[in-house]
C-alpha cells in the first residue's frame, strides 16, 4: 500500500506503541526515533529508496534529534542522565561492558559489510533533462525552442475532430515505434527496457512530461541520444534520432499523443 513495506512499518509502529505504553524516557524515545527512521528508510519502502537519499534523510533526522535533545535544559539532562547512570553506577557494569563490546562490533560489521558488497558496475550521475539548444532544425524546419508549441495542440479546442485525427496518428506512430522501450502503458517499461541503461523515460511520471515544454519533448524525439549535449552523457541512451524515420508531423503527433494518453499538459511557455 502506498508503496510501503507494510510489515516493517507496522512493526515499527508497534514498537512505538509499546514504548508509549511503558512511558519510556526521553533517551529511549530518541534512540527509538533514530533507529525506527533508519529502519524505515532502509526497509520501509516496497521499492527501496536510494542509499544517497536515505543518507540525506538520516542526516536531517540526526540533526533534528540533537536539536530536540539539547533545546532545553530539562531535556538535555533527561537525555544525558541515563547515560551517566549507565557509566557510573556499579549495577549497570555488565550492561556497560556489553555496550563497550557491542558498538565496536557493530562498527566493524558495518565496515565489513561495506567492503564485501558484491561488485557492481560503476554508476554515473547523469543529467536527465539537460538544457536544450536555443533552436534546432528538423527536416529543414527551424524550431525556436523557447517559443515553439505543438502546432496541433490548439485543435483540442478549435477543432476536436482534427485533434482526434492527429492523436490517432500519434497513436499509430507510438505503437509502431516507441512502445518497445517506453512501454504499452508508457511506464518506461517496454519489453526492451530491461536491457537498456539509462532506462527509457517513464511518461506516467509526474516529474517528466508535465515539467517539460512540448518543444523540449520534440527535441528529444527528433534528435534522440545523438543530439544530447555532452552533459547528458549521451552515449548510453538508446533513444533514436527519430528524424531519421519520421516526418515532422508524425513527431508532433506522437508528442501530442503521449501527453494526451497520460492526461498531462505540456508546460506552458515562459513559466518555470
Amino acid at each position, binding site marked *: 500500500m502506498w508503496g510501503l513495506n507494510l510489515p516493517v512499518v507496522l512493526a515499527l509502529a508497534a514498537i512505538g506503541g509499546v514504548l508509549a505504553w511503558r512511558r519510556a524516557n526521553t533517551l529511549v524515545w530518541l534512540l527509538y526515533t533514530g533507529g525506527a527512521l533508519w529502519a524505515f528508510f532502509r526497509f520501509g519502502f516496497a521499492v527501496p529508496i536510494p542509499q544517497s537519499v536515505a543518507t540525506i534523510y538520516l542526516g536531517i533526522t540526526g540533526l533534528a534529534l540533537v536539536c530536540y535533545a539539547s533545546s532545553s535544559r530539562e531535556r538535555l539532562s533527561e537525555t544525558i542522565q541515563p547515560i*551517566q547512570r549507565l557509566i557510573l553506577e556499579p549495577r549497570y557494569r555488565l550492561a556497560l561492558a556489553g555496550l563497550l563490546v557491542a558498538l565496536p562490533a557493530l562498527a566493524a560489521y558495518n565496515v565489513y559489510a561495506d567492503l564485501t558488497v558484491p*561488485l557492481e558496475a*560503476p554508476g554515473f550521475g547523469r543529467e536527465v533533462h539537460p538544457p536544450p539548444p536555443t533552436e534546432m532544425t528538423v527536416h529543414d524546419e527551424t524550431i525556436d525552442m523557447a517559443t515553439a508549441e505543438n502546432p496541433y495542440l490548439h485543435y483540442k479546442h478549435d477543432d476536436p475532430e482534427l485533434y482526434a485525427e492527429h492523436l490517432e496518428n500519434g*497513436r499509430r506512430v507510438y505503437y509502431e515505434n516507441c512502445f518497445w522501450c517506453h512501454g504499452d502503458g508508457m511506464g518506461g517499461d517496454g519489453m526492451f527496457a530491461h536491457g*537498456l541503461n539509462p532506462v527509457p523515460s517513464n511518461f506516467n511520471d509526474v516529474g517528466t512530461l508535465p515539467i517539460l515544454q512540448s518543444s523540449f519533448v520534440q527535441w528529444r524525439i527528433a534528435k534522440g541520444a545523438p543530439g544530447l549535449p555532452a552533459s547528458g552523457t549521451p552515449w548510453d541512451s538508446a533513444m*533514436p534520432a527519430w528524424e531519421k524515420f519520421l516526418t515532422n508531423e508524425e513527431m508532433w503527433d506522437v508528442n501530442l499523443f503521449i501527453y494526451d494518453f497520460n492526461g498531462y499538459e505540456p508546460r506552458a511557455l515562459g513559466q518555470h
Partner: protein
Amino acid sequence: MTGHAMGRTPAAATLAAALLVALPASAQVDLGTEEQRAAGKVVYDKYCGQCHGDTGDGNGYATPRVRPKPRDFTTGKYKFRTTPNGMLPTDDDLRRIIEIGAPYTSMPGWPNLTSAEIQNVIYYIKSFSPDFENPDRYAEPIEIPRPLESTEESIARGRVLYEEQACGACHGEVGRGDGASAPTLVNDKGDPIRAADLTQRWTYRGGPTKEDIYRTFSTGLNGTPMPSYADSLEVEDRQHLVNYVYSLGDGDDPNYGTLITAVYSDEPIDLQDGESLDALFESAPMTRFPLVGQITEPGRNFFPPVTSIEAQAVYNRDEIAFRVRWHDLRADTSGRNNPNLEVPMWDEDNGIGGDAADDSGDSDDFFGDFGGEEVPAEDDFFGDSGDDFFGDGGDDFFGTAVAGAGGAEFSDAVALQFPASLAPTESPELKPYFLYGDAQNPVDLWFVNLTYGVADTFRGRGSDAIEPTEADIVEAVTSYDQGAWTVTYKRRRSSRAGVSFAEEQYTPVAFSVWDGFNRERGNKRALSSWFYVYTEPSVEQAVAGPVLRAALIVLVVELLVVFLVRRRARQKAADEQAEAASLTATEAPAV
C-alpha cells in the same frame, strides 16, 4: 523490469486460480451487461487496441513488428487456459494474463487496471468471438494437483517420459528449444513460432512455476503445435514430467548482472586445449546479460530470438580470455555475415514498410539505401495478408529460413564491443556510443562469424562507419552443442591499438549476437548496452585491517567518554565533599 519481476507473482496467482477452480465453476455463459462491455471498450481502446486491433482481430498498429503476434480475439483460441484443449478459457485465465502479462512477449501486465476494469475488458474481449455465446465451448477447468517433490527418481521418470513423448523434437534434447523440427514450427495462422527454451524458465510465456508447467501439459496451447497430454499421460506422469522440465531450468529469474569479473590465474591460456580451458573458466563467475533488439539505427530488429548471453573472463599475466554462451535453435554456419552488412528497410520491418513501399518512388528517405535488393512488390501485404506473408513460405526473404532447408543466407555471429580507448580519468562516464561508437570515440569489435569460427576485429565509428582492422590479434574458438553456442576469445592484455586490461580496471563491454535463422546481419542484431569487465586484482585484498581499525576507533572513543564522565563525577563528588567539609568547618563553630 517487467520480464523478471514477474517471477514471483504467478505462483500466487496460479494458486489462487487453482483454489477458485476447485469450486464448481459453473460453465455458464456470462457476457456481462451492455454497460460493462461499453466500459470495457473504453479501457480496451486505450490500452489494448494498438496491438490486438480495434476490432479484436489481432491486427493493431504494432502487430506487424511484434512476434509472437498479438492474440486474434475473433478466433476464440487462447493459449493459456485451465480448461481442456480446444475449450474456451475461464474469466480467471484471461484475468491472469491481463494482470501479469506474458513474459518476453509484447504483452505486458496491467497492474494499473482495477479488478472491475479488467472484468469489463474481459467481457468486451469475449464479445469479439461468437464462441463465447456457445455453451458447448465451455468446460470445467482442470484440476491442478499439488506438485510432487522433485526427487531424483521423479526427475529420472520425467526424463524417460520426455524422451518417450519426443518432447526433444521441438524443445531439444536438453531443452534449449533447439529440436530438429524447431525451425519449422508455425501456429495455426501460419506465423512462425518458437519452441520454448526450457532451460530459461523466466521466458516461459505461460509462467515459470510447476503449476504453470503442469497446466500447459494438461491443456496444451491452443493454436500451436504444443499438444495437451491430458489423454496420453496420467496425472502422476505429468507431474514427473513437470519435475524433469523444472529441473532443466536455471532458475525463475535470469539474475541479470552488470559486471563480468575477470579472475586471475597463473595458468597459460591455451585455446586449443579444450579441457584446460574449461577448467580455467570453472573458477570464473558467470554473468548473464540481457540482450534486446537493435531498434535505434536503421536496420532495426524488433524480435530478436536471443534474449540473453552469459559471459565470463579469466586473465593471466599477459593474456585475457572471454567466454560467451547463448542459446540458438540452430547453428547457421553457412551464410555470410559481418557488422556492416546493409539491411534493407523491408527486411527490418517485416511488413510494416507496406505503405512505405507505395511511395518507394521517392527514394531520398526510406529507401535510399536499398541498393539493388528487391522490394517485395505486394500491394497489400500490410493488411490481412500480413499473415500469409510468413505462412506461405513463398517469399524469398523469409521462406527459405522457415523451410529450414539447410543453409540460411546469413550465418550466426557474435561480437564483443570495447571502447577503442578508456575514458579520461576526469570524466569516467564518457563512453563511445553503444551502437558501434561515434566519430570522436571509436569502438573495437571482436567479431566472430560462426561460419569460420575465427575472430575478426573491426573498428566502429558509428553504424555506417565500420572498418576491419588488423591492429589487434584476437583469437577465438567456437563450439555448438545442443542449442548452445560457446565462443572463447583471447587477446594480449596490453594493446597499443585497443583498450588494455589493467588490474582493478573497469572496462566497458557490450555484446551483439546475430541469429542467421532470423536473417540478422549488420545492424539487425540483438545487442546489449554497455556493461563492464572488472579485472579482479591478482592478489586478494584483506578486509581485516579496516574492520579492526573501525572497531578500535569506536572503542577508543567509548573508553574516552567513560573515562571523562567518571572523572567528572569523581571531581564533582570531591568538590561536594570539600564544600561540605568547608560548610561543616564554617558551621562547626556555630554549633
